């Protein structure tokens, strides 16, 4: 089926496009405006039962088109159309090259560096939490919605308390997800536990959703003997095999090619699961972004590349990061289906990831999601962002564009959440966190032997020698060494 698709996708696509032009108000415009929308209606090969929902004009994407009406323009359509129009002359004026047939034209024209309008973003909730009318989205159960909201609150409080703990010198480092709570929680909620997560470092919400306890978070931050990482890495470098969450590493974008490979492994083993890898806006400037996406596309690997475009890469604003329309437009460059979503809209994130997961697994292809959001907190406890951005800007996003408040309004308005529950939850989480910190602080550090294990599966002779020598040194000079690490 995949072969069929490659040969005649253009023909099929054009057929669909022409059909749509007749069936939707302003349909053609929306089709061309965002490849994500277009492909939503042509998500696979022939119309089989499996694909019918997606070919059905009344499915998911009709609502999406209606939701984004406010972004329509005709100019972009014309530009796009002329680029594709030569298809109808396919057989008469085409030329063969490695990579296939291309039609040719004697009119020299450059593809514009950008389209007239930016790719619209998919959203389901208004800023105040009201559902946009006539919107279609992946329905969330009450149980899931309450869990999502509770997790977002928990993440918020966890961030505040751990940040304070660093300021008090109790942990050495921390970084928050402030402003991006909807992204990690809602995306995690849309996945299954078998889906493999390759995080960057600002997605602890995914772990939280999957059941990592506040104690487990605290233990890693304190680097005590209960830390699965055995005290070797800085705080926030969580990892949990049982939760299918690969251990975080500091270097940027290194997880993306790994994600492609892991997804390929799932494909080889015929698993009904995908990989989800997260990256920030800054990370897309790394070479590994290119390598990861290109490999995934060529290998047709089931991986979702989720880009958190929060406007800032430490002190580098997106205006200095790239000259493209954000990250969503880069997907097409690799032949990857992409969508731009409002990252502060939990329901939109949930819906987009749900749909992406289905496509990734059923069609065995990568998907790119760009979630627009804002990094409310400093980059980390080693940063003071007021040095490079206006305090007004930070306060605006924190107050007026808060994803947690927005989702709360929605959950409350449909009667699934109350002020009383809010107070209870916040008090309870706060209490649990303070207790978890106290316990983590008192827990012993891992024993000295863990300095030498896991470099390889078995320690080679040079390490055995060094351990022996070190132990002698520690015996001779005990005052040089921390007392909370047992020898």
């Amino acid at each position, binding site marked *: 089926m995949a072969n069929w698709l490659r040969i005649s996708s253009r023909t099929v696509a054009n057929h669909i496009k022409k059909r749509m032009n007749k069936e939707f108000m302003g349909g053609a415009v929306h089709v061309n405006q965002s490849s994500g929308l277009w492909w939503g209606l042509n998500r696979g090969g022939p119309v089989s039962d499996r694909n019918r929902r997606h070919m059905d004009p009344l499915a998911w994407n009709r609502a999406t088109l209606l939701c984004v009406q406010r972004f329509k323009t005709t100019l972009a359509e014309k530009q796009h159309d002329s680029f594709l129009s030569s298809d109808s002359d396919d057989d008469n004026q085409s030329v063969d090259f490695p990579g296939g047939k291309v039609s040719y034209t004697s009119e020299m024209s450059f593809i514009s560096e950008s389209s007239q309008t930016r790719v619209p973003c998919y959203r389901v909730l208004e800023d105040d939490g009201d559902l946009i009318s006539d919107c279609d989205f992946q329905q969330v159960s009450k149980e899931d919605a309450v869990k999502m909201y509770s997790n977002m609150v928990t993440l918020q409080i966890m961030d505040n308390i751990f940040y304070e703990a660093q300021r008090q010198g109790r942990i050495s480092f921390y970084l928050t997800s402030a402003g991006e709570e909807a992204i990690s929680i809602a995306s995690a909620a849309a996945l299954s536990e078998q889906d493999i997560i390759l995080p960057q470092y600002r997605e602890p919400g995914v772990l939280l959703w999957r059941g990592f306890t506040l104690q487990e978070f605290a233990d890693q931050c304190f680097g005590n003997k209960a830390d699965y990482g055995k005290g070797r890495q*800085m705080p926030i470098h969580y990892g949990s095999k049982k939760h299918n969450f690969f251990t975080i590493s500091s270097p940027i974008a290194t997880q993306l090619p790994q994600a492609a490979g892991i997804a390929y492994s799932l494909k080889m083993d015929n698993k009904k699961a995908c990989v989800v890898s997260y990256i920030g806006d800054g990370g897309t400037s790394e070479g590994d972004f290119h390598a990861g996406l290109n490999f995934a596309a060529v290998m047709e690997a089931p991986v979702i590349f989720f880009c958190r475009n929060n406007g800032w890469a430490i002190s580098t604003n997106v205006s200095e990061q790239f000259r493209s329309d954000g990250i969503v437009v880069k997907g097409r460059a690799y032949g990857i289906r992409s969508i731009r979503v409002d990252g502060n809209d939990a329901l939109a994130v949930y819906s987009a990831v749900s749909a992406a997961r289905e496509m990734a697994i059923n069609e065995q292809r990568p998907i790119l999601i760009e979630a627009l959001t804002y990094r409310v907190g400093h980059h980390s406890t080693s940063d003071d962002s007021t040095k490079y951005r206006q305090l007004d800007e930070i306060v605006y996003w924190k107050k007026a564009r808060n994803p947690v408040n927005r989702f709360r309004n929605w959950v409350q308005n449909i009667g699934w959440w109350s002020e009383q529950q809010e107070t209870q939850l916040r008090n309870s989480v706060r209490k649990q966190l303070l207790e978890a910190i106290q316990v983590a602080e008192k827990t012993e550090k891992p024993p000295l032997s863990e300095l030498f294990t896991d470099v390889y599966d078995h320690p080679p002779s040079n390490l055995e020698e060094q351990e022996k020598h070190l132990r002698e040194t520690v015996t001779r000079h005990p005052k040089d060494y921390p007392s909370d690490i047992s020898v």
Partner: protein
Amino acid sequence: MGNRAIAEIQFADYIYPAFDQIVNEAAKFRYRSGNQFNCGGLTIRAPYGAVGHGGHYHSQSPEAFFCHVPGIKVVIPRSPRQAKGLLLSCIRDPNPVVFFEPKWLYRLAVEEVPEHDYMLPLSEAEVIRQGSDITLVGWGAQLSVMEQACNEAEKDGISCELIDLKTLLPWDKETVEASVRKTGRVLISHEAPVTGGFGAEISASIVERCFLRLEAPVARVCGLDTPFPLVFEPFYMPTKNKILDAIKATVNY
């Protein structure tokens, strides 16, 4: 093209994506083109080394990888005054240079730094403490640790000569050799893991040139052969006492 570029890598731990460009391009630009082109206007500076809480990716000392590349220079200052003079030399040197700055010293070091323009010579090691019983060789932040060890060794009647290598590639063999010919003993100390560290190159060179003069094996007090650990950092580091123990062992060999 006649202009100079000074690139900063925020932490040396993140320099590896640039390794291809540094090793295969910058280092070989002049040689491969028969001196028609060169990459001498390039200086790369990067904070390196332990900081107390940096873990795997904010503490690395990657100098050994770069010392293995003919065509570039590797320079490491031990103090603010040294940093200015050496950096200006690096920028003006007609070869590509990688300049590692010990981040430990960013907040800790206090020194009078002249405001005028001055340059300190590359590939010239400096004897920063005179001694007669043993030669210690180091660079960067490690020198202050070694200096403390030298002070304590002196109380035990051991006279230590301390050399700041400053430029690791190309390094000043003559100064180190002259010192070893005087003392007959040498100890090298660096934070980077001992296996394949730059201390190995110094050791091999000294043995080649001073074998008959040596009274004891060349000692190396370095980081362990593990990734740089967070809570175990104090155990990983080449401390003053580890150096002191090695000084005594070498002198009493």
